[in-house]
């Protein structure tokens, strides 16, 4: 079941036990996922085959092939697909699948089990905590920075944004716009200045003003660009020097439309700056984001958040069960 934000943010106190009746909370939680689905238009539904109705007929080679195709089509990649199908075949051999309902609950379980179960939190328990947001060009870093700031503020944390993308034209202006939108100060320098220096300033500002969380927006870069990856390592070091143990979170944005290259992205960014979790963006499109399965499977990296639109509220805690269902349901 979808988590609440105060459960996701480590260091945020749960709200005072309001006398909200249990059902109402349930309703609200379900509402989130429903809303996410409602925001999808009719054409999406028409496009995604109703696998749930066509997939399960009888347990034969055809079924396994359909399952395989469904997973490949979701961008899960060959290795994860093979693993999931084998698990399902094994379950079938052990007599655990005899009807459609069992088939789908086993499938959901096989997928959910791939995701690391305990590392869903985003650590903002330090003073200040630093979140570094990294990723390939256009994957949604700046937008995600804005959205996280919004949710942190809603949970009572103060936030400062660091405009460490000093490279792309108007990147600083874009983040400043987000700063206005979510009412957060933005620490910025000139275009072309040293991103490490911006981060240094932002942390110093957080310290002197007693701000809880620093979120760093970095420039988009391809994991194959060695000098730019070195620059990222340097930014990481700058944080670590100022705050032992920092950055406390390094979030990698991965676009849900990304194919198998996403796995290489996660591996190389992980090697460079010790990524602590993935934000899977643009899940509001027709792409299923199965690359997240491949990333979790091969690198044991948790998916922490999902982006489901361009507005401030369009960010959700990642829920493996909902995600698994969406992989094979229309």
């Amino acid at each position: 079941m979808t988590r609440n934000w105060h459960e996701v943010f480590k260091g945020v106190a749960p709200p005072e036990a309001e006398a909200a009746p249990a059902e109402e909370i349930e309703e609200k939680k379900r509402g989130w996922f429903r809303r996410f689905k409602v925001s999808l238009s009719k054409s999406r539904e028409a496009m995604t085959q109703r696998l749930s109705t066509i997939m399960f007929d009888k347990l034969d080679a055809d079924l396994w092939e359909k399952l395989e195709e469904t997973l490949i089509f979701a961008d899960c990649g060959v290795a994860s697909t093979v693993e999931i199908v084998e698990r399902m075949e094994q379950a079938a051999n052990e007599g655990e699948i005899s009807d459609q309902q069992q088939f789908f609950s086993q499938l959901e379980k096989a997928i959910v089990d791939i995701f690391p179960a305990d590392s869903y939190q985003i650590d903002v328990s330090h003073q200040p905590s630093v979140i570094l947001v990294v990723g390939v060009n256009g994957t949604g870093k700046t937008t995600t920075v804005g959205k996280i700031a919004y949710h942190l503020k809603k949970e009572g944390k103060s936030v400062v944004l660091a405009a460490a993308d000093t490279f792309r034209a108007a990147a600083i202006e874009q983040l400043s716009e987000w700063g206005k939108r979510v009412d957060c100060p933005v620490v910025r320098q000139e275009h072309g200045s040293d991103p490490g220096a911006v981060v240094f300033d932002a942390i110093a500002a957080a310290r002197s003003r007693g701000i809880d969380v620093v979120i760093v927006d970095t420039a988009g870069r391809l994991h194959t660009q060695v000098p730019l990856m070195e620059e990222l390592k340097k930014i990481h070091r700058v944080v670590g020097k100022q705050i032992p143990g920092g950055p406390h979170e390094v979030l990698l944005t991965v676009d849900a439309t990304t194919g198998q290259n996403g796995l290489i992205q996660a591996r190389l960014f992980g090697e460079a700056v010790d990524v602590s979790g993935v934000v899977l963006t643009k899940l509001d499109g027709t792409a299923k984001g199965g690359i997240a399965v491949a990333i979790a499977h091969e690198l044991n990296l948790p998916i922490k958040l999902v982006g489901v639109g361009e507005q401030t509220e369009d960010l959700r805690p990642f829920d493996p069960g909902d995600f698994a269902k969406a992989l094979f349901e229309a």
Partner: protein
Amino acid sequence: MFDTLSDKLQNVLGSLKGQGRLSEDDVNKAMREIRLALLEADVNFKVVKQFVAAVKERALGEEVLESLTPGQQVIKIVHEELVKLMGSASAKLTMSPKPPTVVLMVGLQGSGKTTTVAKLAKHLVKQGKRPELVACDIYRPAAIDQLKVLGEQVGVPVFSIDGSNDAVEIARKGVEDAAAAGRDVVIIDTAGRLHIDEKLMEELVDIRKQVRPHDILLVLDSMTGQDAVNVAEQFQQQVNFDGVILTKLDGDARGGAALSVRAVTGKPIIFASTGEKLNAFDAFHPDRMASRILGMGDVLTLIEKAQQNIDEKKALELEEKIRKAQFTFEDFLDQMQSMRKMGPLAGMLAMIPGIPKQLRQAQIDERELDRVEAIIRSMTPEERRSPEILNGSRRKRIATGSGASVQAVNQLISKFKQMQKLMKQFAGGKKMPNIPPELLRGGF
């Protein structure tokens, strides 16, 4: 890293050359590998199915050429079929006989439209055109600022209406403005949008009706996965684009989405965007893309890269010297420098098909190259030209000068002599001998 498709095929089909015909069993085994390779390259699975069926039909019973292994024969067939599917010639923009030509750029969020607009403008300026840019992304914060900055960088005017929330009006007025100013191409940047966002797709349709573009270009991220097919089909149905620009090709994505889009829409890929710099933009070569998708090592790209970097005259001289076996340390230094300009040596090796695996994986240490360079630089011009005069005391002097040990200097000289010998054989018309791997380590 993964073995390449060629290695895998070699594995399942054996390495005996000219084995007669491809048996059904061979073909089935090969097709399994091809299918996996294409799926790993993000080619849509339906496209893969059709493609593999077509290739299989052709491969069954085909004669394996004298000089090829069965695996190479299969790759040859697959490559030819891929090129056929991708189209073999580069496509071009349609230019209006009556200027201005109107180009409309469309695509998903984050695919790289704005940067690509500027790159296309620069490309056109180089061809003597006078483009104007129109900023219709009224949604993403600071998108208009971004286009203005880029316009300035490429020296091209940018039309925008500050505070407007009507993209259709901006597009219309932008085209009018460009026409009045006598610009000959108008490139319209639009906001990234999801193909299923009915409201925003409607906006594109309206812009299209208003400005009647000569070219509508879909900007597609080369890292896109299976969903590329949905995206392309929807954009085609709603705005019927004319061609595709493939972005972020400087990364290591195999780019199977290019094949999917081509297969389901039949639209050509016209340009490729290959780097952060605004001149990293060029015509798209379908045949090279075919090699890339197969992960076969892109010989053509390698050759082209080499050509850009090695001054042609020097190259000719070098060829002459190799033929006469007069290759000196001086030439070696030159060559090493132009090679290094092309990028990390290991990457270069990976691009050459048929390089044995142990060589491809040989760790080529860039610092080692620095050391070799330092040693050669400590030689006098005379020593570089006539290495045979390098006696003990000269070697010692060079070692001191370069900060290397005498042993390292000796090693370099003896390797160099081996290399000269190889070149003589090469020059003598023999086939390129197998280079012993140890020659590649330690600086060669």
